[in-house]
């Protein structure tokens, strides 16, 4: 009798990025556009982050109205662009074995870029500064921006939600078609038989993760649309809105979008790391169980942002706390232990891609610890409005998701150009890691000392944390500039590497 952790019938070989005859070339080109577009915008939005930190350190002076515009653009833009890069990476990984329609990927990308353009113009031209959470009723009642700016922001979010919806629906359809149904992509029979039912070929881990992410993406997009409909109605003067309902809906949308980008990029590790270690990453029962659980747990943890709302039902508060704990455990343990098992005595060459992937693992773990602390109700009561919260999500993003995404992009370029990443480039990865860690550490220290978040003007005694962080941010920026320079010189070759003689020009 097969044990719960018996070797499953998943394809044992390491799947190359390029399918035979470059059949996935068109999808890979769309995926490259996602990743490069996402990470390119990330660089620009990162500069806005540097401006805010310089302001908080008292080194430059940004008028408060402009600070909040920049903060809104930085926050909303980062969630959107990192998710964009993550979705591109996932499409590339899945396209190696599953037919994805490049046209649909491009349409979803253009919808996302349209949404992003709305956010940029609304903040920079329209003066909108209510924060990326656009929490009701502030957007409609801000004294320093017109109602039309709030409406334009909502329209931008609507396009972002539609783009995500198109991508997720297509991904789910393609996977279900390739595997003969959704239950097979999620390996539900294998899961509920505790690994005994091995009659069907299991999906590769990136395919399983893509299905999980797509289901949550559809739920998040639906929540976004549910939030936006009463917001439009309110802007038109039709009705008043229940503020608590609005906050629940917008955080289910926004928090899940943020979570998605982190979990999608973690999924990229499953696709890329085996090609460096030479060991296939099998779809074990533990992997299936952990990722299938994510479907529910990722949707349950958003309400840890509502602990301060006394009107929120206690059940939802507890669900937020338990969901936050539970979402961390399966994916962390399986992914982190799996990655370390992959690396252990594999003889891996530490070029830039695996270095960044490993950095991402540690960033994810450290960000997760910060998040679990913040999700604990008594801690949250004290820390939620301090710099502790930006510290934890910056760890998740900068050292986790973004490191994964850059690592995956370097992996893609290596695969498509058949050209090894230069060894010296590892120095840039160290600069990125040390710069990022120093910058984030000072956010944690500031949070630990109760420095409030979302303040445009910092008291002199708070400024020291930001001042210490600035050299680290500059080191981080130099590392990123090195990444960009190197990729810029090799990108065209990678693009050509996707094209076969018969492919679309």
């Amino acid at each position, binding site marked *: 009798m097969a044990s719960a952790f018996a070797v499953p019938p998943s394809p044992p070989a390491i799947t190359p990025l390029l399918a035979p005859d470059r059949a996935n070339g*068109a999808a890979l*080109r769309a995926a490259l556009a996602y990743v490069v577009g996402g990470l390119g915008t990330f660089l620009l939005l990162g500069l806005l982050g540097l401006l805010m930190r310089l302001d908080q350190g008292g080194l430059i002076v940004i008028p408060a109205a402009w600070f909040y515009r920049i903060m809104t653009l930085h926050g909303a833009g980062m969630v959107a662009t990192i998710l964009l890069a993550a979705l591109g990476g996932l499409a590339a990984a899945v396209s190696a074995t599953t037919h994805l329609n*490049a046209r649909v990927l491009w*349409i979803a990308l*253009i919808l996302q870029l*349209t949404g992003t353009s*709305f956010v940029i113009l609304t903040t920079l031209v329209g003066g909108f500064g209510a924060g990326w959470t656009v929490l009701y009723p502030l957007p409609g009642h801000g004294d320093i921006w017109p109602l039309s700016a709030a409406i334009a922001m909502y329209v931008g979010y609507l*396009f972002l939600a539609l783009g995500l919806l198109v991508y997720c629906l297509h991904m789910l359809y393609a996977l279900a078609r390739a595997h003969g149904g959704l239950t097979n992509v999620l390996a539900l029979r294998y899961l509920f038989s505790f690994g005994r039912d091995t009659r069907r070929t299991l999906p590769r881990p990136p395919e399983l993760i893509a299905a999980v992410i797509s289901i949550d993406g559809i739920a998040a997009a639906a929540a976004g649309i549910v939030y936006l409909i009463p917001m439009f109605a309110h802007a038109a003067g039709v009705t008043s809105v229940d503020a608590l309902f609005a906050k629940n809906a917008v955080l289910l949308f926004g928090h899940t979008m943020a979570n998605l980008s982190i979990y999608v990029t973690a999924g990229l590790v499953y696709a890329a790391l085996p090609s460096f270690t030479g060991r296939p990453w099998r779809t074990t029962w533990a992997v299936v169980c952990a990722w299938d659980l994510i479907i529910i747990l990722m949707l349950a943890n958003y309400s840890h942002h509502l602990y301060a709302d006394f009107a929120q039902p206690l059940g939802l508060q507890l669900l937020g706390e338990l969901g936050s704990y539970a979402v961390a455990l399966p994916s962390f343990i399986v992914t982190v232990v799996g990655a370390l098992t992959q690396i252990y005595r594999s003889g891996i060459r530490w070029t830039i891609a695996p270095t960044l992937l490993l950095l991402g693992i540690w960033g994810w773990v450290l960000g997760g610890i910060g998040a679990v602390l913040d999700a604990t109700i008594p801690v949250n009561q004290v820390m939620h409005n301090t710099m502790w919260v930006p510290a934890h999500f910056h760890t998740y993003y900068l050292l986790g998701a973004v490191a994964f995404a850059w690592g995956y992009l370097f992996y893609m370029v290596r695969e498509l150009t058949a050209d090894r990443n230069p060894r010296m480039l590892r120095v840039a990865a160290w600069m990125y890691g040390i710069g990022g860690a120093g910058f984030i550490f000072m956010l944690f220290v500031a949070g630990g000392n109760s420095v409030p978040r979302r303040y445009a003007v910092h008291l002199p005694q708070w400024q020291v944390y930001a001042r210490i962080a600035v050299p680290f941010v500059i080191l981080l920026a130099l590392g990123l500039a090195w990444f960009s320079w190197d990729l810029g010189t090799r990108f065209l070759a990678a693009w050509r590497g996707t094209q076969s003689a018969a492919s*679309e020009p």
Partner: protein
Amino acid sequence: MTVAPGPSGFVWEWEWELPLLASLVVSEVAYVACWFRGGLAPQHAHLAWKHLAAFTAGLVIIVIALASPIGANDERLLSMHMVAHDLLIWVAAPLLVMGGVPLLGDTIRLPRYLRRALELLTSPIVALLVSTSLLWVWHAPAAFDRALASESVHVVEHLCFLIGYLLYWWPLVVQPEAIGRLRGHLARAVYLVVGMMQSALLSALIMFHGTVLYTTYLHVPGATLDSALADQRLAGALMWYPGAVIFALAAALAIRENRTSPLAGSTVSTRQRDHEKAAAARTDPVQ
């Protein structure tokens, strides 16, 4: 017949102007004649009902934009003026290209001077620059107010928009083998996004501007500073939001896996192959 609007009411009458109507009718008659003849170069043209429908629909949209209550009120309300511009550049222009270009037949076989001129004007960078420049220059307050003050300048303004956006849509809409056709998903996506971004920026500048940009609208009977400003905000939104939807739709239609004509949904290549097969069969001595 021009109707002087009341102080606050919306004019529900059409503004029929003879030169406009005459030029549209002549265009339609000329198009239909050429269409029945099989195009300007019949041996290479492959015209279908959808081309006739697209061209006719383009002309009807021009009538709606300029002669309907939308056009009739464009000197009273900036928002109506923007709707008229939207219809001209985002609906009428692509429809006219879709229906009109196949009339030329195989553009590669056009006379050399005409081909060179087309290659230059419809190259994506030139088309983008021309359409963007015309859109921005005419929305400068001085130029816009001048157009509102003089009927002939107003006509020139609309012609500029139409010509600029005939060029803009050309690389996306024309049949696969035509001159100026933009190839590759990335190129088409970038072209669409740049086109969308520049018009979105202009719309946002109009929408969020704190004062009335086009002062003519302050002198409309019954207008106040607040009403003119609210109208300006609405005008910006009417240029921005439908524009984004149009570009998203255009992306859905223009980015395709195969080489068939995008927005037109044309199967010109297949038709051409059939046509060539039939021609070959006619000349085949064995048959």
